[in-house]
């Protein structure tokens, strides 16, 4: 009764706590915040203080002096640094909830389907100590499928592949539940790492995470171009041989080569999931195919590669980056109806 009352006054929110980006969906207002999951912490006289969160902190990533640390509190889709994650969630909640701050909000946070109970508990607790009145968890593939607009509650199989920053979730859904899900810890971060490793190995050039991400977004491709080198891009970094900053030109083909391993892992995960799918659901999936969501879906030609690896139609959802947030938000909006998909650790 009382919680209902406060519910009217507070802005309930759905949080897609992603490895790369955190999106906040506020009930009735849509997605109001989309910022990188980065926190910059300054140490003043032995006390740690949050200096910046989000975009601002991301600019600091890899460029900090000794007393500042730019941290990404999430790794592989789960919380790696509990305290910093809590600070970040607190900051985001405060940012979107400033107007009606006297009532604490109800928060739905999504978690990777492959996360352990300990990891889920960590996410729920950090959201609670960040000032949430009540916290519910939703599994990422379910949120992604709802956000992509798949008919998840119908008696027909839907397959969704959500390629996030830290994890790739492959799931088959039907009748409002997850029939099979598989989570591999390969995502945008692994692709960045692969690019860094490739450039260092082949060009003796060390590039930062930010640069690697930029390269992936601009000329990244899941398969090499038919012939030629494809698009090219100038990259800057530090030469490992003589230690001076250097610039060189890298091509799409090289990046596609470097990305072969993470892409292969994603394909493998999809194939394994298909192998475990019941025949009736498999028949549905043959008809309608796989839907890609998450930032990884924007990697060019990934749908093409997946299509030819699986022989199924592969389509990319509308606005793949915000599918999970939209789905979580919809679970929030239609909470009485969709409460089956929400869980709580206690």
């Amino acid at each position, binding site marked *: 009764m009382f919680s209902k009352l406060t519910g009217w006054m507070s802005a309930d929110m759905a949080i897609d706590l992603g490895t790369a980006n955190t999106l906040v969906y506020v009930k009735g207002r849509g997605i109001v915040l989309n910022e990188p999951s980065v926190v910059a912490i300054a140490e003043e006289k032995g006390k740690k203080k949050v200096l910046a969160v989000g975009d601002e902190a991301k600019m600091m990533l890899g460029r900090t002096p000794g007393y500042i640390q730019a941290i990404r509190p999430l790794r592989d889709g789960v919380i790696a640094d509990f305290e910093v994650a809590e600070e970040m969630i607190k900051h985001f909640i405060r940012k979107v909830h400033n107007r009606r701050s006297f009532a604490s909000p109800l928060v739905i946070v999504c978690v990777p389907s492959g996360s352990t109970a300990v990891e889920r508990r960590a996410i729920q607790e950090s959201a609670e100590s960040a000032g949430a009145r009540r916290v519910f968890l939703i599994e990422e593939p379910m949120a992604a499928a709802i956000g992509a607009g798949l008919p998840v*509650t119908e008696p027909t199989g839907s397959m969704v592949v959500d390629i996030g920053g830290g994890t790739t979730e492959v799931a088959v859904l039907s009748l409002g539940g997850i029939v099979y899900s598989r989570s591999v810890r390969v995502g945008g971060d692994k692709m960045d790492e692969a690019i860094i490793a490739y450039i260092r190995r082949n060009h003796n050039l060390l590039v930062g995470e930010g640069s690697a991400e930029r390269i992936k977004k601009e000329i990244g*491709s899941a398969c090499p171009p038919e012939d030629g080198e494809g698009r090219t891009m100038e990259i800057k970094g530090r030469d490992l041989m003589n230690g001076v900053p250097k610039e060189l030109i890298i091509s799409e083909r090289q990046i596609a080569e470097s990305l072969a391993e993470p892409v292969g892992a994603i394909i493998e995960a999809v194939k394994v999931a298909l192998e475990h799918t019941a025949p009736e659901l498999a028949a549905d999936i*043959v008809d*309608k195919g796989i839907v890609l969501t998450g930032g990884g879906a924007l990697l060019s030609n990934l749908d093409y590669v997946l299509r030819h690896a699986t022989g199924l139609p592969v389509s990319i959802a509308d606005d793949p980056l915000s599918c999970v947030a939209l789905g979580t938000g919809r679970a929030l909006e239609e909470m009485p109806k969709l409460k089956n998909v929400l869980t709580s650790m206690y």
Partner: protein
Amino acid sequence: MDSTASDPQQTETPAEAPEPAAAAEAAAASEPVPEPEPVSEPMSEPVIGAVAPPAALAVNAGVGATLRSAREGMGKTLPECAKLLRIRQPFLEALEEGRHRDLPGGTYAAGFLRTYAEFLGLDSEEMVRRFREEGAGGFKNRTELTFPSPVSEGRIPGGAVIFLGLILAAVAYGGWYLLSSAETKVTEMVPPLPDRLAGVLNRQASLTGETRPAGEAAKPGEEAMKAKEDVVPPTETEEEKPAAQAPAASEPVKAEAPQVEPPKAEPPKVEPVKAEAVKAEAPKVEPPKAEPPKVEPPKPEAAAATSVSDGKVYGTEYADSRVVLKATGDDCWIQVREVDGSLLMSRLLRRGDSFRVPNRSGLNLMVGNAGSLEVSVDGRKVPALGAAGQVRRDIRLDPDKLAAGG
């Protein structure tokens, strides 16, 4: 290729699009694909294809037509496209022919269209946008999510119970209100009756030829109904005359009580004090009317009735009553028991209230305030039973004895 040099930003320029297609073809050839139908009949299009450049048609043609002309411009057949894109041919046909109903749900249809448009070198986002506009009716953007829920066990839902309860409460209250308001109406309707009583009185007075003034006093009230003066039961018209008449009728009777009294043996008790009381509680005068005129045998009785009329009268059912108990001073509690000890009546008589004791032997009276209780036998007042505030028990209500001063 040349396109990469000229346009490094776009992967899927129209010129480049055939290349992945070719690669796909190669891939398709190398691995066995469970393609449902290698249809070979719709080969008629390629013949007339390649005539219209896609850009010309794309301006305002439908999405389907744009797709078809683009495909024909590329010189591909539907089965080829279906094989390359792994999208089933019926779906591609439905897309080209704009049959939205044959396509799977919204997301899938949009996804297929996006893939197909990209494959054909069209602007996929633009195509999807137009497709949505076209299919505003049949094409739903937002999937309806209804979770399968267990069949309800036929219990009445809580909401309905509360609703029904509210309705019942409202009906009950409404009924009570109606009934109670009807009651008040009865009391409102009462005042006219003293008028009738006055009429009766008047007639009796005129019959005896005495107490002329009483008749005169009643006159102002009667003027309105002079035509039917002899008709005793009052009609609606005279009922309209309000309570004002009642005091008018009854007051004069009292006012000239000194004159009327001696012959009638009216107790001299009925003084001005009462007259005021009468005025004050004029609307309450109903009891006298409740005791119908017909049970009123002798004149003194009638007079007693009027004199008593200023309070509630209990025991009116005992027509042969000889003893009347009346609270004159303060309120007075009385209890009357039968000879066998059973309770006949027990109540608090308010000032002015009276109780007509049945003409029965062996009745016992208990009185809480003997000083304020006036006892009259056959209309004659007898000495008070005690001092004010005195409690007396076991008084025999024997009229003769009381009259003798016992």
